[in-house]
C-alpha cells in the first residue's frame, strides 16, 4: 500500500495514572487507515482498542490518561498536539464516533429531533457566517439524516423521546448525529454489542451502505470476529495494549499467523460448522500495572521461546499481512 493513509497513528503510547501505579494501557501502537477503508480493531476486554480510538479525538480525561509518546496524523495535522478548542472543531467534522449503548448517549428529556438539530446547529458555528443555516433548515437537514439512516416515519419520529424508541432505532439516531457534520471517518465502538442479532444485522447493513454511498472510512471496534468479517476489509488484532497482527480479512480468517489470533479463532463457536471442542486460551490477561517485558502475550503463548522477553519487531509477511512475533521474524531472516 503505497498511497498516503488518511489517518495515521504512529508510535502511540498512553498511560493511566492510578492510585496503584502507572497503568501502561497502550504500548507503541501503529495504525494506518486508508480512504474508503473499513478497518476492524479486534481484541478482548482491556486490550486498548477503545482507548486508542478515543485518543484520536482526545476524548479521554487527562488526568488520569497521559500520552507518553506518538503522533496521530490526519490531513497534515497532529491531533495529539491540538489544544482543546482546535480539537473540538475536529470532532464530528473530521472524525465522528458512535458508541456501544445508544441510550446513555441520548438525553432522556429532549426529543431526538431536538438533539439532532442541536448537533447540526453546533456545527454551523464553525462555518463562515454566509454558509450557516437557520433552525428551519436544520430541521429539514435533520429529517434528511433520519431518512438516510432509514428510520421509519422520520417526520413523526422527530418528536419522539429516546425512551419511545428501540435500541436499534436509538443507534440509528446516534449514527445520524455522527453523520451530521459530514465526517471523513466514522469510529464505531462496539456499535451492535447491545443489540439483538436481527437488529445487529440491520445496523451492519446500514453501516455498509454508508461506506458505499458516502465514501466514509470506518474504524469498527469490536470483540466479535463475526461482525468484523461481515463488514471490514482489513483487521487489526490487539492484545494488552499492543498491535500484534494486521492483515486483510481474507488473511486473518484464512491464514492467521499470530498464536493469539489463532487462539481467538479457535475459541469462537461457528454457527454452521460443528467443532467437537472449543479451545480457550489458557491463563488471563497480564496486569498492565506491571506488564511483562517484551511480548505481552508470551505467558499464554504456546510457541514461547527465549527471545520473547524482548519486544518483537514488526514483520511484514506480505502486502496485506504484518505481524509482531519472533516466530516469524526469525523465519524471515533464516
Amino acid at each position, binding site marked *: 500500500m503505497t498511497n498516503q493513509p488518511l489517518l495515521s497513528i504512529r508510535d502511540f503510547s498512553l498511560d493511566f495514572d492510578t492510585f496503584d501505579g502507572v497503568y501502561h494501557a497502550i504500548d507503541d501502537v501503529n495504525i494506518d487507515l486508508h480512504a474508503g477503508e473499513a478497518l476492524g480493531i479486534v481484541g*478482548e*476486554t482491556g486490550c486498548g482498542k477503545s482507548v486508542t480510538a478515543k485518543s484520536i479525538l482526545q476524548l479521554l480525561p487527562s488526568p488520569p490518561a497521559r500520552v507518553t509518546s506518538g503522533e496521530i496524523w490526519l490531513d497534515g495535522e497532529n491531533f495529539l498536539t491540538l489544544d482543546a478548542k482546535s480539537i473540538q472543531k475536529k470532532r464530528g467534522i473530521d472524525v465522528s464516533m458512535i458508541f456501544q449503548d445508544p441510550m446513555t448517549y441520548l438525553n432522556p428529556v429532549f426529543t431526538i429531533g431536538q438533539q439532532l438539530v442541536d448537533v447540526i446547529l453546533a456545527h454551523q458555528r464553525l462555518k463562515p457566517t454566509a454558509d450557516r443555516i437557520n433552525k428551519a433548515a436544520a430541521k429539514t437537514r435533520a429529517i434528511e439524516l433520519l431518512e438516510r439512516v432509514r428510520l*421509519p416515519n422520520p417526520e413523526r419520529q422527530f418528536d419522539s423521546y429516546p425512551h419511545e424508541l*428501540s435500541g*436499534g*432505532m436509538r443507534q440509528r439516531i446516534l449514527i445520524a448525529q455522527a453523520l451530521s457534520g459530514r465526517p471523513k471517518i466514522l469510529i464505531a465502538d462496539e456499535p451492535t454489542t447491545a443489540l*439483538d*442479532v*436481527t*437488529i*445487529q*444485522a*440491520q445496523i*451492519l*447493513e446500514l453501516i455498509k451502505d454508508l461506506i458505499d454511498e458516502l465514501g466514509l472510512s470506518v474504524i469498527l471496534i469490536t*470483540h*466479535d*470476529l*463475526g*461482525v468484523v*468479517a*461481515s463488514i471490514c476489509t482489513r483487521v487489526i488484532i490487539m492484545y494488552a495494549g499492543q498491535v500484534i497482527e494486521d492483515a486483510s*480479512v*481474507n488473511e*486473518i*480468517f*484464512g491464514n492467521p499467523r499470530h498464536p493469539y489470533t489463532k*487462539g*481467538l*479463532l*479457535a*475459541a*469462537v*463457536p*461457528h*454457527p*454452521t460448522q*460443528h*467443532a467437537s*471442542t*472449543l*479451545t*480457550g*486460551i*489458557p491463563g*488471563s490477561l497480564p496486569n498492565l500495572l506491571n506488564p511483562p517485558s517484551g511480548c505481552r502475550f508470551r505467558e499464554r503463548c504456546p510457541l514461547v521461546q527465549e527471545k520473547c522477553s524482548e519486544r518483537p519487531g514488526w514483520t511484514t509477511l506480505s502486502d496485506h499481512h504484518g505481524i509482531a512475533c519472533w516466530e516469524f521474524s526469525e523465519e524471515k531472516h533464516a
Partner: protein
Amino acid sequence: MLDINDLKVHFDTSKPLKRKTIVKAVNGINLSLAKGDALGLVGESGSGKSTIGKAILHLVPITSGSIKIDGFETNPLNRKTERELRRRAQMIFQDPHSALNPRLPILRSVAEPLVLHADLRGSELRAKVAELLETVGLPSQFLYRYPHELSGGQKQRVCIARAIALNPELLILDEPTSALDVSVQAQILEFLKELQTKFSLSFLFISHDLSVIRHLCNRVAVMYLGEIVEEGLTTDIFHSPKHPYTQALLNAVPFPQAKQPHREAPLTGDIPSPVDLPTGCNFYTRCPKMMKGTCETTSPILSELSESQKVACHLHS
C-alpha cells in the same frame, strides 16, 4: 425430567387511574426436558426466554400453568416444596460480578446452600467447598479470596460451584457467558459440557447466541414474544429451519470467516410490545412470508412436523 405445561407469566404494569396494561412475558408454553438433555432456549431480548428460566425457580410469580420436576409439582409453592425445588434445580446468571456478594469470601458464598440444606459445619464444610472449587478448576487458595480479586471467568466458575453444591438435577443457565471474553467463554463452555456428562445433569441453556447454543445443546426451542415458534433437535433446526423467524435469526448471525454466505435481506422492524400483542400470529408484522387473510387473524399452533421437530406456522400446517 422437567415438564412444563401451559405456563403463563403475565406482569401487571398498569399505573393508577390508567388503562390496564399487562405484559404477557410468557404466554402458554409447553416444554419438556429429559434427563441428561441440554435444551437451548433462544430468542431476542423481550421474547420471554429469561422469564421462563426464572419462573421454573419461582423467582417471578407464575400466573398459571404447571411445572413438574421428576413428577414433583412445584406450582403452587409452599415453604417445604420451595426447599425441595431449590435442591433439585439451580440457576446460573449472566453477570457473575453481581451474582456474588462482594463482602463475603468465596468460601461463604459457596457454603451457603450446604449450610442450609446439607447442614454441614466447620472443617467438613470447608473440605466440601474446597472439593467443589476443585471440580470447577479453581485452587483451594480461592477459599478466602473476595469476588473483587477474581476475574470474570473465575467468578463464573465460583457461581457454577455454588450451583452444583447440592447435586441438582436441573441447571438453568441464563446467558452464562455473554459477559465474558471469547477465550474465556470457550473455557467455560467446554467445562459446562464436561460437567453435564460427568453428573448427567439436565441443562436449560438460555442464550441469544445461536453459535453457543449449537455448540452446547442437543435440542433447541426458539421463542418469539412469549411463545415457542419452533422446537427440535439442534441439527434439524440449524440445517432445515422451518419457521420464518428461525430462518431470519440464522440468516442474521455473522460468520467468523472471510467468505460470507449469501444472505437474505435482514428482518425489518422491531419486536412488537408484549403489552399489545398482534392479533393472529405474533410474528406476522415482520414476517417476509406473511399470508394475507390467514396469518393476521388466526394464531398458528405448535404442531409436529416430524418426530423431532415442531413448528408453529401456517406455512406448515
